[in-house]
C-alpha cells in the first residue's frame, strides 16, 4: 500500500514587494486550503520585478485568474495601457521600429503573412513590417480600446499590457492578498534555520527571536534570494550575451496630456535607456556596461538564472530566480509565470524530486528563451561603438543560433516550449532590426506578387480606416474610471 504524503498546509512568503504579495494572493485564491504568511521585507533596489512600470500582455491573464478587474488594476491602481515599445538607435541607419503586441498582418494564400512581406521587402517594395500591426497604428495615433470584433478584423487580434504606478499597484496587491486571508508578519529576518538531516528550511528566525515555521518557503526577496541562497545556489551566467551590468533608475511625475501607449528603449554608446509612463508616474532608467561606460555609478546587475529555482522546500520567484535587465519588460512576467507554475505544480509535503525537476526544467526553458529574445536585440544591433560591436560579435547561445539560422534561410521560425514571446514578437524584432531571410518560403510562389501587394495594401488601409474611430487613450481611461466609480 502506498502512503500518500500529506498536503502542504503552511506557506511562508518572504518579500513584501509586488512579487511577494502577488504570490500570496494567487496562492490563497487558487489553493484556499493553504495558510499563507507574508514577511513583507521591502524590496531592494535591484528587485526589478517590484519596480519596473511596463508589463507584458500576460499580466491581463494573471489578473483574470485572480478575479481582479480593471476597476482595480487600471482605474484605482493608476495604470495605463501599453501597446509595445519603440526601439530607437539599435541599428544605425535604419529607422526606429516598434515592437507592438499581437498580430502583424494575416496569413493569406498558402503562407503566413510575413513571407509575403519578406518577398516584397527583398524586392524593395515593402512598408515597414509594423505598418501591418494594428497595435502599432493605435499607439502612434494615441488611441486605445480593448481588442474586439470578428476574428480576422484588425481590432480583434492585437494585445496590450499595462504600465503600472508601482506604489498603487503594490497597495492593491497587498490589500487583495490580505482580503483573501493572507497574514502579514512584519519584522526583519535574522536567520534561515535548516533542518539537520534533510537540509530543508525548518524555520525563518525573526529579529525579535520568534521562529516562523512553514512547509513551503517562497522566496520573493529579489536577486539576493535571502531564503533560497541559504540552501546554496548556482547562477547560470548570461553576461556573454547580455553585456549590461549596471543600471540607474529615477522617477518623476508623468507629463501632462495623453499617457503614452509605447515606452521607449533607446540605444546609447555603452548601453541603452528607457522611459515608461503611467498616467501618474514616469520612470527613466539606463542600462550600461560599467567597463565601457567608464562609470561605476548605479546598481550592479549580474544577469543570469538560478540553476534550480526550486530546491527542497524553497522556491525562488521573480528576480530571486531570474536576474535579467528590463529590456522587453520580462521581470514581473517571469515572476507571474513562476507563481502560476507553482500553483499548477504544487507538490505534497514529500517534495517529490520528479515534480521539482519538471518545475525547474520548465522554468529554465522559459528563462533561456527570454535570454535568447533579449540577446537577439544585441546580436542584431548595428552600431559603431565598441560596446555594440562586441555585443554583435558574440557567439549566440545554441537555441538562438538555431533560431537565427532557420530564420535567415527561409524566414521560418522554430517551435520552442515555454516561449514568452510568440512568433509575431520574434518577427517584429528580427525584421525591425533588419535580420532578413536570404529567400522567401517557396510556399508563396503560387501567389503572384501583385496579389500579395493588393492584399497587403488592403490590410494597411483596413487598419488605417479603423484607427480614427477608436477613442484616445485618455478617453478610454476616463470611460473606465466612470464605470468604476462607486
Amino acid at each position: 500500500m502506498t502512503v500518500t504524503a500529506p498536503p502542504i498546509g503552511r506557506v511562508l512568503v518572504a518579500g513584501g514587494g509586488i512579487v511577494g504579495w502577488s504570490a500570496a494572493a494567487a496562492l490563497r485564491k487558487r489553493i484556499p486550503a493553504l495558510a499563507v504568511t507574508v514577511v513583507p521585507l521591502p524590496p531592494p533596489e535591484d528587485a526589478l520585478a517590484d519596480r519596473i512600470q511596463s508589463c507584458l500582455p500576460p499580466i491581463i491573464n494573471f489578473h483574470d485568474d485572480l478575479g481582479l478587474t480593471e476597476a482595480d488594476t487600471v482605474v484605482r491602481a493608476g495604470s495605463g495601457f501599453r501597446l509595445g515599445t519603440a526601439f530607437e538607435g539599435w541599428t544605425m541607419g535604419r529607422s526606429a521600429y516598434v515592437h507592438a503586441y499581437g498580430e502583424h498582418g494575416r496569413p493569406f494564400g498558402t503562407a503566413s503573412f510575413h513571407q509575403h512581406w519578406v518577398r516584397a521587402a527583398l524586392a524593395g517594395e515593402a512598408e515597414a513590417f509594423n505598418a501591418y500591426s494594428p497595435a502599432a497604428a493605435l499607439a502612434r495615433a494615441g488611441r486605445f480600446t480593448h481588442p474586439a470584433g470578428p476574428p480576422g478584423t484588425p481590432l480583434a487580434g492585437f494585445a496590450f499590457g499595462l504600465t503600472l504606478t508601482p506604489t498603487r499597484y503594490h497597495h492593491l496587491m497587498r490589500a487583495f492578498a490580505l482580503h483573501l486571508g493572507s497574514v502579514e508578519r512584519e519584522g526583519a529576518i535574522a536567520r534561515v534555520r535548516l533542518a539537520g538531516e534533510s537540509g530543508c528550511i525548518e524555520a525563518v528566525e525573526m529579529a525579535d527571536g520568534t521562529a516562523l515555521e512553514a512547509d513551503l518557503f517562497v522566496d520573493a526577496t529579489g536577486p539576493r534570494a535571502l531564503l533560497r541562497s541559504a540552501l546554496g545556489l548556482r547562477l547560470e551566467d548570461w553576461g556573454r550575451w547580455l553585456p549590461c551590468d549596471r543600471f540607474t533608475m529615477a522617477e518623476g511625475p508623468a507629463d501632462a496630456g495623453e499617457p503614452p501607449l509605447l515606452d521607449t528603449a533607446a540605444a546609447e554608446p555603452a548601453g541603452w535607456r528607457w522611459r515608461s509612463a503611467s498616467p501618474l508616474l514616469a520612470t527613466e532608467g539606463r542600462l550600461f556596461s560599467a567597463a565601457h561606460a567608464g562609470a561605476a555609478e548605479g546598481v550592479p546587475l549580474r544577469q543570469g538564472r538560478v540553476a534550480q529555482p526550486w530546491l527542497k522546500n524553497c522556491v525562488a520567484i521573480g528576480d530571486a530566480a531570474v536576474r535579467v535587465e528590463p529590456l522587453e519588460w520580462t521581470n514581473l512576467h517571469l515572476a507571474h509565470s513562476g507563481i502560476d507554475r507553482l500553483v499548477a505544480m504544487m507538490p505534497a509535503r514529500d517534495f517529490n524530486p520528479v515534480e521539482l525537476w519538471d518545475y525547474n526544467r520548465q522554468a529554465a526553458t522559459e528563462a533561456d528563451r527570454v535570454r535568447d529574445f533579449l540577446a537577439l536585440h544585441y546580436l542584431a544591433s548595428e552600431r559603431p561603438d565598441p560596446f555594440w560591436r562586441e555585443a554583435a560579435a558574440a557567439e549566440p547561445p545554441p537555441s538562438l543560433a538555431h533560431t537565427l539560422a532557420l530564420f535567415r534561410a527561409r524566414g521560418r521560425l522554430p517551435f520552442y516550449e515555454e516561449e514568452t514571446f510568440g512568433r509575431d514578437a520574434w518577427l517584429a524584432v528580427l525584421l525591425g532590426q533588419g535580420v532578413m531571410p536570404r529567400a522567401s518560403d517557396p510556399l508563396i510562389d503560387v501567389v503572384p506578387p501583385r496579389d500579395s501587394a493588393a492584399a497587403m495594401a488592403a490590410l494597411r488601409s483596413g487598419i488605417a480606416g479603423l484607427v480614427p474611430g477608436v477613442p484616445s487613450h485618455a478617453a478610454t481611461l476616463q470611460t473606465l474610471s466612470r464605470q468604476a466609480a462607486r
Partner: protein
Amino acid sequence: MNEHTIRNVVIVGGGTAGWMAAAAFARFLNNGVTKVTLVESEEIGTVGVGEATIPPLITFNRMLGINENEFVAATQGSFKLGIEFVNWGAVGERYFHPFGSHGHDLEGVHFHQLYLRERKRRVMEDISAWSMSAVAAAHGRYARPGPEAGFPLSQLFYAFHFDAGLYARFLRAYAERGGVQRVEGRITGVNQRAEDGFVQSVTLASGQTIEGELFIDCSGFRGLLIEGALNSGYEDWTHWLPADRAIALPTTYQGQPDPFTRATAHAKGWQWRIPLQHRMGNGIVYSSKFMDDDEALATLQANLEGEPLAEPRRLAFTTGRRKLTWNANVVSMGLASGFIEPLESTSIHFVQSGIAKLIALFPDRRFNPVERDEYNRQMRDMFEDVRDFIILHYNATRRDDSDFWRYCRTMTIPDSLARRVALWKAKGRLFREGYEVFATTSWVAAMLGQGIVPDDYEPAVDALDEERVAQALEQMRTAILDVAGRLPTHAEFIARTCAAQGPAPKPPLPEFVF
C-alpha cells in the same frame, strides 16, 4: 431649564455640516439635560469639496473656543485673504474680491465714492490697491493682526482654506469630547407622528431605533428627513444659476501657497483653485446644458498645475433652497437645506449661520411656530442675498465666446438684483440690508471688477476738497503698501505658527474593496 427643555437632539449625517452642528451643540446645549446623538454611516461618502471659507468662521471657532493655530494645523489649512477672479468681465481681465474694507471713509463719505470721483480726475490704480487684504495677497504675505492693530493692518481680514474631510474629523473629536454620542449605521426608516408628521425616531439597518425631539438633517442633497419624510419642497434657481455639475480634482503643487482662492472663468464654466498646505484643491463648475462631463473634465485637466492626487470626483446638484429650512421638528443644514455653487465660498457659512440662528431661536418641546417662521425667514433672506451676489458674477459680463455666457449675460435677473445694479450704475450707491453676508466692499469689488462703472458719484462727495481727498487716498495707498511689505510671507507664517504636524501626508492611496 424646565419640563419643556428638549432632551434628545439627533443629527442625521456626519459630513462637515453634521459635525459642525454637533460641535456647536456640544458647547451650547451643555445643560446637563439635552443629549446630542449623531448618526452617520461609513458606507455613505460625504461631499465636502468646500475647502474655502469666509471670515465669519473665525467667530464660529471663537464661540467654540477652538485654537485657530491648532485648527489650521489639523486641517492642512492655509489663510485666505479673498478671491482672485480671472476672465469674468471679459477674457484677460482680473479683479480681486478682498475681505475687509477698501480704504476708510472720510467725513462720513464712503471710500468708494471718494474713489469714484478721483477716478474721474485722473488715471487710478485698481481699487484693490486700497485693500490691505488684497495688497497682502498680491505679495503672498499674511499675518494675523492683533486686536490692537491700527489702520491699515486692522483691515487685514482673513478666512481659511482647509481640507473639509480633516475639518469634520477635527470637529468630531471636539464634539465627542463634549459628550456627543456617535452612532454608526445607515438609516432605513423614519417614523413620524400621524397627526402632524413630527419625526419621532429613525431606524437603522441594524434594527436599532434612535428617538429624538429635534432632528437636524445633515444628510446631504437628498434631505432624508426634510424632503424624504416631510416633503418640504425645493425652490429651483437653475434659471439664474444654470451650473448643475462639478468635478473636483486635487493636485500636488510646488512652491508657496497663495493666501487666496482663485476662480477662473472658462468658456463654459469656471474653475476653483484652493491652496492647502499639502495639496491644491481644484475643480470645475459647469452646466450640463452647455457642456458635457467629458469636455468639463478635459477643460479641468488642461488647466491644472500639478499632478492629480486622486481620481476626479463628480458632483451633480440643483442650485436652490429648501422651501422650509425648518419643518415640523426637523431643521435642515448644509446641502440638505439648499446649495449655491462655491463661487464665493459660502457653503460652510450657510451651515455656520444656520447653527448660530438655530441656537438663537432654539425651540423647546412645544415647538412654538413663531421661532420656526423667524428662522425660515432669516435663512431665506440669506440664501437669496447670496444668490443675487453670485448671479451678478455671471450676468455682469461682456463675454460672448459661448452660448453659456450669452445665456448668462442676457437672462432675466431677480428684481432685487436689478434694483441694486441700477442704484449702483447711477451714482455708485449700495445699501446693506438685514443680515447680508456680503457687505459694501464685496459689491464694490465685484461691480467694478466685472466692469459696471457708475455714471456718477454721490453729490455729497463734492463737499470735500479734491486735493485733500487725493492726498488722503495716496496716503492710504502707500501706508497699505508699506505694511504689506513688512508682513511675513504666507508660507513663513504657517511654518512658524500652524504647520501641519509631521511631513505632509503622501497622496492618499485608493481604497480597494473586493
